[in-house]
């Protein structure tokens, strides 16, 4: 039986995206996720991680970001914890997706994609931590 829970930590560097992908792919394959599900979850985790790395800290020090993945009864649960500034990505503005090319802005697209690919996202600030819990049905 493969383990259906995993925890790993990354530092606040974009080069860690390789490790993020490796960890997710290993876990996803061990619990039998499709390539498409792994792709979509990877994209969402990257968008959240990149936001944290880019905006959460006001110094260049190394900080740790925790990832908890679990899979039970066809549901993937991803919990992401960071100790950066308080930030609720669910409050990000939805981009205007219907405007002309010239007026199109890229901001907010990452969170928009995250909301699209997940069935449920929940944010809490707990002490000095941002805790984001994402759920996706992968049946």
């Amino acid at each position, binding site marked *: 039986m493969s383990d259906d829970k995993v925890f790993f930590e990354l530092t606040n560097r*974009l*080069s860690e*995206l*390789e490790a993020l*992908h*490796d960890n997710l792919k290993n876990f996803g394959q061990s619990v039998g996720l499709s*390539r*498409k599900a792994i*792709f*979509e979850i*990877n*994209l969402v985790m*990257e*968008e959240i991680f*990149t936001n944290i*790395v880019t905006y959460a800290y006001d110094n260049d020090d190394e900080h740790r970001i925790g990832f908890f993945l679990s899979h039970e009864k066809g549901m993937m649960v991803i919990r992401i914890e960071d100790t950066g500034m308080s930030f609720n990505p669910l409050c990000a503005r939805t981009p205007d*997706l*219907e405007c*002309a*090319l*010239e007026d*199109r802005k*890229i901001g907010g*697209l*990452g969170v*928009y*994609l995250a909301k*699209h690919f997940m069935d449920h996202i929940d944010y809490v600030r707990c002490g000095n931590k941002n805790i984001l819990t994402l759920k996706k049905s992968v049946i």
Partner: protein
Amino acid sequence: MERQKIEIIETMRNNVSIFRLKGRLDSNTSQEFENKIFGAIQSGSRSMIIDFKTLDYISSAGLRVILKAAKELKHSGGKILLCSMESYIREVFEIAGFDSFIPIFPTLDEAVNHF
């Protein structure tokens, strides 16, 4: 462990710059892609195709570069076309609404013939 970098192979066909992407286009690799595309635009390239046939992954960082290039090319009278996407990558372009202003073709030949 296998490195997950991006490889960008640039070729010319009928005066069209073709960029074949291989690997993963994410927040860490998109700068290299941006440099390559904008280098070509600066050198006078106005007709471009991005070939996704061997691309495994894209996030909003990759979409940002394509949007920026599409705006720049439109401004200078050029055009960018995309081709050969896996269905799950195409879906990202559709969700983001990019397919409404950047044509996506099933194959490279169809994209080349469109110019």
